[in-house]
């Protein structure tokens, strides 16, 4: 069965269906049903995935499908997943139905601060199209196909921000688009150069691993890919589009933007930068580590100073993307696996934060932290789940982000102790920005304007419940996910030809 093509076809057909049905209500229901079907298919596919095949070059990408697309240039429709891609596809498949349910009223202009009513059907159709593209971008094993998805994803997101966002939506959407297009163009040049210089007559990723040998060429091509990914992720100092985009996007779109789309950047670094340009990756490692560590501390400090909830959450993500990039470029199995798991965990915890913030804003009509206070008293469930999501954001052990952050830091420490120590200071700063936001919004005397604020309704409970469950489950039982991720990360790192740090040898004796 062509699993991956099916996973992409179902939401695309669903999008067509959504735009054809008569009523808005039915459109939402169809969208939800389609996204749930995608989730079910993804789970079925995951059950058939065999992590142990990840070690061999031939079986590395499972559920592979390769068809010629533009034979003249060796462009293929090539898809397949290893453990890294699989968990990210699973993340997307879990988040989309949750986002659809959370966005139920986001487009119909009923919120306290919502823009006027827009086409509900278009919004949900865009969501489904975006889902197909998110699956495609992680599944692509053809570099050109990856590039096409990488760019095409911008379109639905651009419309979701530009047409359905907050007051400054146009500015935010254009900024998002311009930054992304700039990065994308650089990558396009590098993709074409890779094809030409590689001289293999194909864009298939497995064929291209190791073809660029010349160090100088590697460096230039690395930069082309890396800058595109650094803008996408985003790493400091390419980050300023994110707070605007995330704050102006409707909460659901912000979740997919920060939770999934941005991960394409860090995923790209791990998959393409490291494997295609190993020497250049090693050469630029000090630079990337500096950017990552600066981003961790800088993002956290700027987050502390924010006065708007969604902007604050966006800055915390910049700090977290620093952790992920650090884990990727530490080039140890612990850090790489931690970074991959971090991409998943961050999607859940930041997703929950954005969505609950969105519920608050829908009710109160303001994202300003100062407009809230004492919400816990009137809406304890909302406050409690917000706190759990926040605690996961500050990497509290027992919640999912802890495992990934711990692995990134310990894996980085194995090779680069000083950056790891500086990055670890992020745990203190994270406590400041999360708990201070919680204190200002949820505790203290109940503000007059939120006295009548209703607690989570049934639909919203179904939104938050699965996220909280995932956060706790992955916090206590990360090994099923890590068992899928580890062999894939091992394989990726083996292509970088780097000696494991001293600890790995002792591990055998230590166990």
């Amino acid at each position, binding site marked *: 069965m062509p699993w991956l093509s099916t996973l992409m076809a179902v939401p695309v057909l669903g999008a067509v269906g959504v735009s054809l049905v008569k009523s808005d209500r039915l459109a939402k229901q169809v969208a939800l049903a389609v996204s749930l079907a995608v989730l079910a298919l993804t789970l079925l596919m995951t059950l058939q995935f065999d992590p142990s095949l990840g070690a061999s070059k031939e079986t590395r990408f499972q559920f592979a499908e390769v068809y010629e697309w533009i034979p003249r*240039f060796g462009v293929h429709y090539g898809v397949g997943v290893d453990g890294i891609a699989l968990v990210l596809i699973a993340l997307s498949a879990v988040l989309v139905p949750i986002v659809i349910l959370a966005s139920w009223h986001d487009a119909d202009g009923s919120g306290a601060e919502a823009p006027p009513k827009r086409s509900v059907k278009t919004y949900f159709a865009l969501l489904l199209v975006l889902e197909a593209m998110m699956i495609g971008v992680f599944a692509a094993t053809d570099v050109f196909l990856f590039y096409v998805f990488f*760019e095409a994803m911008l379109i639905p997101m*651009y419309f979701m921000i*530009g*047409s359905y966002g907050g007051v400054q939506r*146009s500015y935010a*959407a*254009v*900024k998002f*688009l*311009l930054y992304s*297009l700039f990065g*994308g163009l650089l990558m*396009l040049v590098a993709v*074409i150069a890779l094809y*030409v210089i590689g001289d293999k007559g194909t864009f298939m990723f497995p064929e291209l691993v190791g073809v660029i040998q010349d160090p100088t060429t590697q460096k230039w091509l690395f930069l082309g890919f890396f800058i595109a990914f650094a803008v996408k992720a985003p790493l400091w*100092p390419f*980050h*300023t589009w994110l707070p605007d985009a995330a704050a102006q996007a409707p909460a659901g779109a912000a979740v997919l933007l920060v939770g999934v789309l941005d991960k394409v950047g860090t995923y790209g670094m791990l998959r393409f930068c490291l494997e295609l340009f190993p020497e250049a990756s090693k050469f630029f490692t000090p630079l990337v580590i500096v950017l990552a560590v600066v981003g961790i501390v*800088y993002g956290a*400090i*700027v987050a502390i*100073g*924010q006065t708007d909830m969604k902007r604050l959450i966006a800055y915390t993500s910049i700090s977290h993307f620093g952790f992920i990039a650090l884990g990727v470029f530490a080039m140890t199995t612990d850090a790489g696996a931690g970074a991959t798991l971090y991409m998943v965990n961050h999607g859940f915890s930041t997703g929950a934060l954005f969505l609950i913030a969105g519920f608050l804003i829908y009710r109160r009509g303001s994202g300003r932290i100062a407009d809230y206070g004492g919400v*816990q*008293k009137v809406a304890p469930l909302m406050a*409690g789940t917000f706190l759990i999501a926040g605690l996961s954001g500050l990497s*509290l*052990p*027992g919640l999912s982000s802890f*495992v990934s952050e*711990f*692995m990134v*830091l*310990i894996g980085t*420490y*194995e090779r680069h*102790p000083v950056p*790891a*120590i500086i990055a*670890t*200071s992020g*745990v*203190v700063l994270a*406590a400041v920005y999360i*708990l201070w936001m919680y*204190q200002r919004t949820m505790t*203290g*005397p109940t503000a007059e304007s939120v006295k009548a604020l209703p607690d989570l309704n049934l639909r919203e409970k179904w939104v938050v419940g699965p996220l909280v469950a995932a956060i706790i489950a992955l916090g206590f039982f*990360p*090994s099923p996910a*890590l068992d899928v991720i*580890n062999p894939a990360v091992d394989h990726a790192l083996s292509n970088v030809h780097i000696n494991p*740090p001293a*600890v790995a*040898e*002792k*591990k055998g*004796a*230590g166990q």
Partner: protein
Amino acid sequence: MESPAEIIQHSGGVIGVSWLMIALPLLGAAILLLGGRRTDRWGHRLAIGMSVTAFLIAVISFFELLGLPEDERRRAIALYRFIPGMADMGVLIDPLSISFALLITGVGSLIHIYSIGYMAHDPDRRRFFSYLNLFVAAMLLLVLADNYVGLFIGWEGVGLASYLLIGFWQFKPSAATAAKKAFIVNRVGDFGLLIAIFTVWTGFGSVAFDKLSGTAVGEALKTGQVSQGSLTAIGLLLLLGACGKSAQLPLQSWLLDAMEGPTPVSALIHAATMVTAGVYLVVRSGGFFEAAPTAQLVVTIVGVVTLLAGAIIGCAKDDIKKGLAGSTMSQIGYMMLAAGLGPVGYAFAIAHLITHGFFKANMFLGAGSVMHAMNDEVDMRRYGGLYPVMKVTAITFIIGYLAIIGFPLLSGYFTKDGIIEAAMEHSSVLGWLAVLGAGITGFYMSRMIFMTFFGGRRWADDAHPHESPSVMTVPLIVLSVGSVFLGAFLILGNRLMLFLAPAVGRPEELPAFHAFSGPGLATLVLVAAGAAFAWVRYGAAEVPLVAPRGSFLTAFARRDLYGDALNEALFMRPGQWLTRIAVFFDNRGIDGLVNGLAAAIGGTSGRLRRVQTGYVRSYALSILFGAAVVVGALLYVGNM
């Protein structure tokens, strides 16, 4: 010196299911939190049931352990894979961990029961009990985990419970602020603990206790696998973690504010159990500390400085809970001092920790009983003459008081004296400073007794004190019995030292107990002098309702030795400025540069604004244009 025994994997019997001690209270917390209002009626009973069951499991495990030969008394039970290849979940039942488990579940259960009465009128009592259960589970994970990662999960878990409980009345801004402060200061300590774990992992390739015994550390040092420098670093970083959790200098400032929490919380978390976790960490990591004398020296110095600082703070507080909190800092300083002495001191540290758990919980709950009677008044200047109206509370409180000042034959006499003698043997400076601390303890604790229970009645007009219900007084009585006898039981015949030996080792020569040694006598004289001085100032003389200005020393102590002022000047204000500058830079610097660049390229900024204000379609077109460029380029390349 005798080293600890090997850890044996797997065990049957109740020890084999001892993980239930953690799981049951955790389940209780989950049921109460998820069940919501439906569980309001019986929630507290479920929570108590979970806590008491955990206590029973601890007791049975303890006796099973006693039934084993000495060198088989360390049992590890593997539970499940956590981080593959790095850390698995498992519990370690050995004399050290079971001692803590008994203290946590025993005192914990009593405080659960007491809270039925204390929190009876609180609309959120169920939530309170769910947090208490969460705390018990996390604290047990902390002491029972068989590796540092598991320990760290419990470590931050108790931090969470502490945060939730300090901020339990979070509609009060002071409570919310205190909760946040406690968490953040603790995170500074956790930063140290995390890096210690990283260093251990990198140096030893394991985080499991059975791979990190003193023997293993010595071996690694000999073969050059780890350097002396990294062992010292590990010791100091572990100490930083311990300082955060145990409110030792320089991370002490959160504990006094933590008194914003309900009093049972202060008794359980901020006196009897959680704050002693730092001592547990140092003792559990004995293998590292014994190989790093510099780190050990720093531990003893931190201990001595804190025991004096806490005592001085205790002298100046009029708030009964804050006075007790200063005293807690000080007593943990004693434990830390002992823990820094190596195997000679471990048993005394743990013995004092256990007896302190009893007499301090006893006094905190007693203070709660007084507050319950006095409309939540905490100012001792509004107390006085309470002895006749609440005799059970008063008598049990006074027993706890006698125990803490080291009145002969009561608990504190044996355990504190053991620490002082061991310290004296190590270094006379440390020893005499510890004696001085005991003298100050005699003063501030007597002051508390005189101001609260004796002298004139300085009550507010609407105060009608009465004895608390038996659900509150019975736990007081149980704890005061422990305060009387536990010390003699643990110390005489070196009972605890011999029991702990398989877990932490012991000195070759067992210390003998001298009823009236030189330092012991000096301590008694100083304590008596302190008590007499307190009687002159607060017993015989009238206590003014408003605190007199006092000397600069008093002001120094009242302001917690300027700990908060220092933090504010060194960290908070610079931090605020840094934040402001960073936000400004982010908005104007990076973003301004990019926007400016875009404007320059576009010719005028006006054009940019036009670009930004709409025409959605044109941007879609620009993407299409980009795609066309791609195809064009490909065609071109393909034709080459």
